[in-house]
C-alpha cells in the first residue's frame, strides 16, 4: 500500500492509497463508474473510454481506470460532459455491431446492454452497421460472433496476461480492427488451447459457449460451486445447470485459490460425460463372463477377497498400485499408504509418469 492521499469525489471527501486508480477509489467508496474494457488481473488499457470522469484542471476527460489518484484531486463522475461522452461512446458501440438481444446468449448478462439501459439510450443516432463477419462455428466449444465484438480487448488480455497462451491479439487497424488468432485463423486451426478464459472475459455476446447455445438464459441458470474432477489441483468452478441439466461451466474469480477463476479445457468444456448414457453409475462385476451391476459393498468385498488371496498365494509384491492424476493429493497420499501399509508393497506408481 502506498501513502494515503485525500481527494474529493462527487463532492465527497475521500481517502485513497496513492497507488490506486480513480476507479478503484470510487469503487471502494461506493461510487459507480461504468467500465467495459477494464478487467481485473490484467493491464488497465483505457480503451473503451466509458469510465471517463472529470478531473479539475485536466485538459480533457480522464479515463478513471488508468489514472492514479493524487492528493487534492477533485473528481466528478456524473457531470453532463461525462454522461454525454459515455452516451455517445455507447451509441458508437451499439451502432457498430449486431447487438440483437433477442437471440443473444448473453442477453441479461451483457455489460453493453446494462450500460445502454443505465444511460437511458433509446436508440443510437447512427445507423447500425455490423461488419458482417461469418459466425465462427468450427469447433464444438467456443462460438465467436465478431459482429457483436466491441473491441474492448478483454479476451486479448485474458489470453495473454492471465493464461499466457498468447493466441489472441488485434489484427488490422482502426474500425477494421478485429480480434483473433494469428493469420485470422479460426480457433480450431490456431494455437488455441481452449481454456475458455476469453469466453468468461467477454462482456458481450461475442465469445460464447457453443454447447450452451439455446440451452438456458443467464437468469434461468443455477450456478453450483464445485471442484473440478479432472486433476489434483482442485480448481473451483461453477456448474451452470438448467432444469437439472449441466449447461456450461464457468470460472468464478471470487473463489480465489487455487485457480482464481481460470480453468483448463477439460474443466471448462469436458462436461459431456456427466450426462452421457454410457457413463458408469454403479460398479460392475463379471459373473459368468457377463458384467453385472453390483452394489459398492459387493464390489469392495470382492476386491478385498481377491487381493487377500493373491497376497497370501504370491506375496505382496505380486500386487502393484497405479494412481490417477484425477485424484487429489490427499487421495494419492492415502493410496500409497494403503499400498504400503495394507498391501505391504512399494509397487506404487502414478499415471502421470506413464
Amino acid at each position, binding site marked *: 500500500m502506498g501513502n494515503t492521499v485525500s481527494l474529493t469525489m462527487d463532492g465527497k471527501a475521500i481517502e485513497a492509497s496513492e497507488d490506486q486508480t480513480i476507479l478503484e477509489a470510487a469503487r471502494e467508496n461506493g461510487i459507480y463508474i461504468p467500465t467495459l474494457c477494464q478487467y481485473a488481473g490484467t493491464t488497465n488499457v483505457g480503451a*473503451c473510454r466509458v469510465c471517463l470522469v472529470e478531473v479539475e484542471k485536466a485538459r480533457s476527460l480522464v479515463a478513471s481506470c488508468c489514472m492514479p489518484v493524487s492528493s487534492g484531486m477533485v473528481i466528478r463522475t456524473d457531470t453532463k460532459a461525462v454522461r*454525454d461522452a459515455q452516451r*455517445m*461512446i455507447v451509441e*458508437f458501440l451499439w451502432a457498430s455491431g449486431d447487438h440483437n438481444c433477442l437471440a443473444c446468449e448473453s442477453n441479461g448478462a451483457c455489460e453493453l446492454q446494462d450500460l445502454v439501459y443505465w444511460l437511458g439510450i433509446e436508440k443510437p443516432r447512427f445507423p447500425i452497421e455490423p461488419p458482417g463477419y461469418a459466425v465462427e462455428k468450427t469447433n464444438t466449444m467456443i462460438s465467436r460472433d465478431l459482429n457483436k465484438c466491441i*473491441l474492448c480487448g478483454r479476451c486479448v488480455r485474458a489470453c495473454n496476461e492471465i493464461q499466457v497462451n498468447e493466441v489472441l491479439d488485434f489484427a488490422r*487497424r*482502426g*474500425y477494421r*480492427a478485429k480480434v483473433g488468432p494469428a493469420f485470422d485463423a479460426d480457433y480450431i486451426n490456431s494455437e488455441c488451447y481452449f481454456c475458455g478464459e476469453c469466453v468468461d472475459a467477454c462482456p458481450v455476446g461475442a465469445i460464447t459457449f457453443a454447447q450452451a447455445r439455446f440451452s438456458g438464459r443467464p437468469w434461468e441458470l443455477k450456478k453450483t460451486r464445485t471442484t473440478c474432477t479432472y486433476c489434483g489441483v482442485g480448481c473451483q468452478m461453477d456448474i451452470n445447470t438448467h432444469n437439472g441439466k449441466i449447461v456450461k461451466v464457468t470460472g468464478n474469480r471470487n473463489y480465489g485459490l487455487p485457480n482464481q477463476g481460470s480453468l483448463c479445457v477439460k474443466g471448462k468444456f469436458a462436461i459431456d460425460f456427466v450426462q452421457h448414457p454410457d457413463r458408469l453409475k454403479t460398479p460392475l462385476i463379471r459373473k459368468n463372463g457377463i458384467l453385472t451391476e453390483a452394489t459398492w459393498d459387493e464390489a469392495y468385498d470382492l476386491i478385498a477377497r481377491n487381493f487377500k488371496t493373491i497376497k497370501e498365494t504370491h506375496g505382496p509384491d505380486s500386487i502393484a498400485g497405479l494412481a490417477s492424476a484425477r485424484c487429489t493429493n490427499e487421495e494419492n497420499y492415502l493410496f500409497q499408504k494403503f499400498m504400503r501399509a495394507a498391501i505391504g508393497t512399494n509397487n506404487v506408481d502414478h499415471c502421470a509418469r506413464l
Partner: protein
Amino acid sequence: MAKLRIEDLKNIRESTRAAMSLRVEMPPLKGKPGVSDRASGKDLLICGGTGCHASGSLGVKKALIAELEKRGLSDAITVVETGCNGFCAMGPIMVVYPEGVIYMLVSPADIPELVEEHFVKGGMLQRLLYREPSTGVVIPIMQEIPFFALQELRVLRNRGLIDPEKIEEYIARDGYRGMAKALSEMAPAQIVKEVLDSGLRGRGGAGFPTGLKWQFAAASPGDVKYVICNADEGDPGAFMDRSVLEADPHAVLEGMVIAAMAIGAHQGYIYCRAEYPLAIHRLNIAIAQSKENGLLGKNILGTGFDFDLEIYQGAGAFVCGEETALMTSIEGKRGMPRPRPPFPAVAGLWQKPSILNNVETLANIGQIILRGGAWYAGVGTEKSKGTKVFALTGDVNNVGLVEVPMGTKLGAIIHDIGGGVPHGKKFKAAQLGGPSGGCIPIQHLNAPVDYETVAELGAIMGSGGLIVMNEEKCAVDMARFFMDFCRDESCGKCTPCREGTKRMLQILTNITEGKGREGDIELLEEMAVIIKNASLCGLGQTAPNPVLSTIRYFRKEYEDHIRKHHCAAAVCAALFKSPCQHTCPVEMDIPAYIALIRSGRLEDAYRVLLRNNPFPSVCGRVCDHKCQSNCRRGKTDEPLAIKFLKRFITDGAARPEITRALVTRKEKIAVIGAGPSGLTAARDLAVRGYTVTVFEELPEPGGMLRWAIPSYRLPRDILTDEINDVRALGVNIICDTRVGMDIPFARIEQEYDYVFLAPGAHKSQLMDIEGEDLPGVYGGVEFLRDFNLHEKDWLAGKKSLGAKVAVVGGGNSAIDAARLAVRLGADVTILYRRQRQDMPAAEEEITAAEEEGVNIQYLVAPLKIAQENGTVTGITCRRMKLGDFDQSGRKRPIPIEGSDFTLGVNSVIAAIGQTSDMGFIPRDSGITINKRDCFVLAADSLSRTTRARFYAGGDAVTGPDTVIGAIAAGHQAAGDIDEAIREANGEKPYEPPPEEKIDIPMTIDEETVESPQVRMPELHGADRKKSFKEVELGFTREEAVQEAMRCLRCDIEI
C-alpha cells in the same frame, strides 16, 4: 580514420573550410584570413533530395559530370550532390558557386548548353533561371529570390551547401562543436538549462518545452535510459524531417548525443519510417562515419561518454508518430498508444525513462549549445522562440521547404515566400498541422504563426505541414478528406477515435453527396467535442480539428451543401452534373448548349439558353462567367470560352418567337426598376399568369445594362431585342416614372398585391476629398449615364471631359469610364490604390483598356482635386506602399508620407463604388435598409424584405454585383412571390409546364489533345479607339465548333 579528439575537430574544420570556400561564405577564422586555394574554380551543387531525385537530378548529375569531363573542366569544377535545397517545385535544382546562380528545372538535355553558356562563355543560361511568377522578372542569384531571401535558416542551415554523406563538410560548418562543448565543458544540468533558456519547444506538433522534457527524464532514477528520435513523419503534405535527415543527418545525431548526455542515456533509437529510403541510407552513412570517428559509441571524443544508437524502421502507421505508440512499436508490439501517466520520462521504452524528440527539434540542439540559448531565443515571439520549418504545398507557386522565425505572418509565408496562389486564383485557406490541424482562412493572413495564435485560430502548429488551398477547394470535402485519413489511421484501440472518426466521415460523406440532413452540423460539432475530449491519444484528440475549423470558418458551405445541395467550389461531384452548370448562378445547362453548337443545332441551343436566362445575348457579352473558373478543362490547359460560345448561339440563330403569356391570375404585381433583376422577375411572373407592371425612372429600360455598360461592349439593339421579348410576354414597362416622385409609394402599396424592389445601385460613392463637388468631377456611373442620355451632345463636343482625364478606382465601372473617355478623345489615367492583381475589374477589361492606351498608375490614392477659379486643373495624389493583409486577403495600401504629386487633368471620374438611391422608400414603410443603403432581407427568406408583400433583389440587396447575379435574384424573387401567393390562397405549389424535349448529343472524344481557348477576334487600331463599334467581333462557326469540341462533357455519366 582514427577516433577523433576535440582538438582534431578544429583541424578538420579548418582544412575542410578552405576546400569549401567557394560555396560557403565562412566567418573568417582566427588569425587566418579566408584564403582559398581554389580561387579559380567553381563548385556546382546539385540537389539530391528525394524530390529532386524524383524529378531526375541524378540524371542531370551524370550528364554534367560527363560533359565537364568531355570539355576538360573536371578539375576546376567540383560537382557536389547536396540534400534538399528547399525549392522543391523547381527541381532538379543546381546552384553554381561562388556566384550563387541558381538553375531550375534542369534536364540532362540542357547540360551541354548550360556548360557552354555558363562555364565556357562565362554568361548565364537565361531560360533556366528563376522567373518571378507574378511579374516575370528574372532573378539569377539564389539569395535574391524572395523564396530564399526571406527565410532564416537555422535547422536548414546546411541545406544545399554540404554533401550530407561527408562528415567533414558537416564539421566544417561548425558541426559537432556543440556536442564537444556539451561533453567536455558542461554538466547535464547546464545542458538542460541552456535548452530551457532557448525556449525551444517540440517541433513534432505539441510544442512541449524540450528542456522541460529533458529535465523530467534527467530527474528520473535509473541507469538505463533512452533517447529516441521521432522520424516517423506522417502528416500528408509534410516533409521537413525527411529533408533534414537527407540534407544534414549529422545535425540530428549531434542533437541526440547532447540529449543523451543531458539525461544520462547511453542508447538511442531513430524511429524512421521505412518509406524514407534515402533518409535511412544517409542516416546509416552518417552513423557509420560517426562511429568510425569516435563521435558515437564508446568514449566519444575521448570524453569518456558512451552513446550508441540504431535505426528502427517504422512500417508506416501514422499512429506510431505518437510517442507511446512509437515506443510500443520499438518494443516489437503492435503500435498502439498507452495511457499516460506514466509518462515516458518516467517509464517509456521498455518501462525505462525515455525522451522522444522530433527530428527538427534535435537538429536545433547543436547550435543552441554552441551559440547559447539566448541566441536561439533571439528570434520568434514571446512564447514561441526560434524558427520553424514549414513544408509549403498545395495551391502555391513556390512549393518547398521554408524556415522562418516563429511569429512570421501567415500571409508573408504564403505570398511573399510562397509566391502566392498560381493562375491568379484566390487564396481560400491554409491547412496547418495536417489532419490534426485546422484551416486558417483569408481574413487571418496577418496572423503571426506561433503556437498560441495558431491554436486560437483553431489550427495547430503540428509538424509544420502548410497546405495552401485556393478558392476551388471545398471546405466540406477538405474536412472529409482529412477525416478519411484519420479514420484509416486510427489504431482502433479506443472507441471515440475508432468509431467516432468512422461516423464523422460517414456524415461528412453524406453531406458531400447531397445526403446531409438538418442537424448534421450540430451533431458533428457535438461529436467533435466528445471525440477530442474522450480519446486516448493525440490522434483521436485532434482528428476532429479539421471539421471544427471548417465549420467555424465555412459553416455556410456546410449549410449550402445540406440545404441547397450546392458546392460553391464545384468539388463535390455527386451534387451536380457539371461544374460549369453548378457554378452558374442560374444553373444554365452549359454542356448541353455547347454540345448542340458542335452538332450545328443552334436553334435548339438557343432554346436551352432561354430556359433559365432571359438575357443570353447580354450574358454572352458582359457576364463575369463564373462558370469558366471551375471548368474542368482549365485543369489541363484553359477553360472553355463559355461566354463567347453563348454569344455565338445568339448571334447565329434566329430568336425564338415569344407568344404573349395568358393572364390566369388575379394578383397584380409591381416591379420597381427595369434592370436585369426586375425584368427577369417580371418575365417569370408573367409566364406564371400574373399581371406585371414595371416602373422605371429613366427613359429606357435596361438598368445598368443600358446606362452603365458602354455600347462597344453591349450594342443597344441587342439589349433592346431581349427586353422586347419580356414586353412581348405582356409585361407593361412604364419608363420615365420614379416611384415616390412621379407616382406615390402609397399608390403602389394600394394598387399592387406584391412588389418587387430592384432599383439597382446607380449612385457613385464619394471619394470624400476636397474639390469633389467641382464641375468636371464626375461619379463613374453618373458619367456613363450622362453620356448615354446625351450621347449626341458628348459626341458633338457640347459636353466635354477635356484633354486629360483621371479615373479613380479599379472596378469594371472605372474601366468602362476610362475606355469611354478614350473614345471621347481624352488622354486617360486610371489611379488605383492597390496593385493590378487586386483590381476587382475583369482581367480582359483591364487588358483592353491598356491596349486602348489607358495609363494605369497603381498604388496611388487621391488627396484633393486641384483647381483654378472653379475649374479642375489636376488631382493631387499620394503614393501608397503595401502593408498588412486586410479582411479580403489583399495587402492594405498605406500612404507614403511626402510622396504627394499632382497629375494635371481637366476632369476626374470617381468610380470607387456604387450604392443605391433609397430615397423612394418612405421611412415608415417597414422596409429595413442597412448602413450600406441595401435592403435587409427577412432571416427566413432569400428575397423577402422585412415587410410582407415586398421583395427585393439585385444590386440593391447585394451591393454592386454581376448581371447574372441580378438575373438569379429575379428568378428567386419571382418564385418566392408566387409561392407566397399560392400559400396564402391555400393553393398547390406552381408546377412549371413540361419542358420542351431537346435531345442532347452524347459525343465524347476518346482522347483530349491539349489546346488553348480559341481567341475572340477583336476590332483593333483607330477604328476601335475612335468608335463605339463592338470591340469583340464574335466567333465564326468554325471557331465556335472548334471551341465547343474542347468541352470534356463532365455532365455525362457513363
